[in-house]
């Protein structure tokens, strides 16, 4: 017998476009998949040894909800060094991946605000997280010239319109564009004047060449910023689902309670692997950054020769192109998967991961 109750549940579900937003793959499904959010990469044998030893030594039980202490310390130290954040262990929550960081931050910090200002172009995971329980999102216009980041003026306008919580990516997860230091300072001034708060997705920051300007660095009291990102991206841990939230302790408390309700803790194997990855990160990231930067420079030259329109961005692990529908089909016909900008809110753009297969995508267009 058909169930009307189930029918009603499913009808409401189907009508929820935000919740049904497709997610991009966490890691590539093969060499021709340039759509994934996370980076594939070799796993250092020292990481394998550390994670295995932890499991063999009985670290197979529940651990503290916000994560094991040494990893929280390591993330806090890393953020201090890399982005100038002012964090201690009590500010850090280890999560089961970036999507959990998004979900916990927008849902639990969002509970304290009437609305959340969201850029018109943003990673689809945010819309999905908000689709589960709306926090009254308000759209901020973005600037194509700024690589689809909101302009300072647009942020100021949203604040003037009453928004007190902002979700911002820098670098953009579509284009890799990042705010410059003076722009971050200007955003900070707006936020401080309005006594507002920011959830700042800085997951692509490790792949910015040169200085990276983090909003968290300006929040010296650690009072108004929740910074989120993957834990040690590029170290071969993308499929291990490990990320962080760095936030004021009052926010950590509510997110920790919610994390207990929905997961208890994060996989111990992932946490001990990340702990070791942190030890190796500076050197490994430096090598990878140089390699990616050279690769991307070559790709930009090739794109220029082919007359393609590249969206400017600072993160060297991604490249966004403005393309016609026909050109998007050409890439698909070449068997290459890309991240469709339509999922982010920019239908005439695609995002390609920068790796040894990216040149094939450009060749398909030339």
């Amino acid at each position, binding site marked *: *017998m058909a*169930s*009307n*109750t*189930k029918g009603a*549940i*499913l009808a409401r*579900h189907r009508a929820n476009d935000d*919740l*049904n937003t497709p*997610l991009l793959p*966490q*890691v*590539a499904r093969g060499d021709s998949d340039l759509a994934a959010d996370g980076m*594939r*990469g070799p*796993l250092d044998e020292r990481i*394998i040894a550390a*994670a*295995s030893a932890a*499991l*063999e030594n009985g*670290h*197979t*039980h*529940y*651990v503290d*909800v916000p994560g094991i202490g040494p990893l929280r310390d390591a993330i806090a130290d890393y953020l201090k060094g890399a982005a100038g954040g002012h964090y201690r262990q009590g500010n850090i929550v280890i*999560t*089961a*991946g*970036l*999507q*959990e960081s998004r*979900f916990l931050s927008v849902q639990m910090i969002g509970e304290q605000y009437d609305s959340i200002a969201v850029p018109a172009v943003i990673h689809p*995971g945010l819309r*999905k*997280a908000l*689709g*589960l*329980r709306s926090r009254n999102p308000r759209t901020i216009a973005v600037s194509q010239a700024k690589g689809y980041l909101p302009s300072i003026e647009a942020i100021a306008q949203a604040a003037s319109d009453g928004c007190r919580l902002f979700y911002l990516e820098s670098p953009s997860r579509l284009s890799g564009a990042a705010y410059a230091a003076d722009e971050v300072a200007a955003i900070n001034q707006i936020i401080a004047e309005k006594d507002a708060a920011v959830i700042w997705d800085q997951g692509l920051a490790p792949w910015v060449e040169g200085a990276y300007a983090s909003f968290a660095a300006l929040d010296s009291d650690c009072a108004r910023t929740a910074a989120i990102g993957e834990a040690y991206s590029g170290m*071969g*841990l*993308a*499929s*291990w*689902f490990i990320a962080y939230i760095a936030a004021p302790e009052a926010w950590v408390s509510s997110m920790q*309670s*919610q994390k*207990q*309700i*929905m*997961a*208890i*803790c*994060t*996989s111990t*194997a*992932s946490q001990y*692997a990340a702990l070791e990855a942190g030890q190796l990160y500076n050197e490994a990231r430096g090598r990878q950054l140089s390699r990616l930067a050279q690769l991307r420079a070559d790709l930009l030259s090739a794109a220029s020769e082919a007359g393609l329109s590249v969206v400017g961005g600072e993160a060297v692990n991604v490249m966004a192109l403005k393309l016609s529908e026909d050109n998007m089909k050409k890439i698909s016909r070449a068997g290459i998967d890309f991240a469709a900008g339509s999922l982010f809110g920019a239908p005439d753009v695609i995002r390609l991961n920068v790796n040894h297969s990216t040149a094939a995508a450009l060749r398909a267009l030339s």
Partner: protein
Amino acid sequence: MSKKKKTGTSLLYQLIGEARGYDDVIIMGRGDPDFDTPPHIVAAAKEAMIHHHNDYTPPQGLLPLRQAIAERVKRVNNIDVDPESEVVVTNGGQEALFLMVLAVTYPGDEMIVPEPNYNTYADSLAFAGGVKVEVQTYAETDFRADPQDIRKAITDKTRSLLLVSPNNPAASVIAPNDMREMLDIAVEHDLMILADDIYDLFVYDDFQHVSPASLPGGKERALTLNALSKAYSMTGWRLGWIVGPADLMARVTELKAAVSGGASVISQYAGIAALTGPQDAVEMMAEAYRRRRRMVLDALDEMSMKYGMPQGGQFVFADIGFTGLDSAEVAQRMLTEQHVLAYPGSAFSKDRKDYLRMTFLQPEDQLMEGLERMKVAMDNIMAEKQ
């Protein structure tokens, strides 16, 4: 300045936090088995780190793991599911629970919950904006949920019925006849069923667990959760699952993607090894729990404490009403004075201030020591009372 009195999950975490400060503490609270994960599962995880660390995993989980889960729920629970479309892998039973509640609850919807029950159900329901409608059960009847009480609790807003069997914290098992009657009620009133089978391998004496989804007419309206945490001593790996009808599981998949995106690929390969590898460790642990349960019941009998007979699960829910104190106070005194952590019943239900939940997830010498210290604490409380 008076501190706000903690309740529910936050009360438990306060006690856990204090317990960490005692070197000689005996933990009889948290549901974390003392056994480490069996070595062949750890070995499989290590293999996965070498060969599969970059594997793509969809939000619903690796297909080989979903196939292993489908085989397991058929073998153990007699539930037929298609691994392609009717299984979603989760970050432990806790995420499964959260997603299951979200899957069937919109704001204002009522869920019937036999009490006492695991406190996270109330937390998840509150997140979803749902309303918990309690049906009380009692120690005198071994915490049996009476189907007729469930029927009486149904209103025009009732959308779902929660069935946790064996129950946490009361350790009751829903008898097959009762389960059939509850399913009939669910069909009659068109309710969804949320079935929590996480303790299904721990059923004692002649009691029998039946999954509602295995009964005729059950599968299309039931979501069933389980996890590897308790049966394989894998609490730190965070691996569980939900099975159910394909149409509803499509919603569960989207919810899973929204909440956390996926589950660690290493844990998933470890899960495959757990479900498809040797099962002797599971039986060894189950046998240990049978022995320890007997030890706890003997000790409680010696203390003349009443309890509902634990028919399944890994704990005993004992009546401490004779002390005249709230269970939170008794738990606090046991912890502070004797360094024994048991969970107060008030953390599970506001109406269970007369109960303590004690696990039997400790090595037997520690368990015996814990019970002896508990007796000292109770004697002290009673001496003060007189």
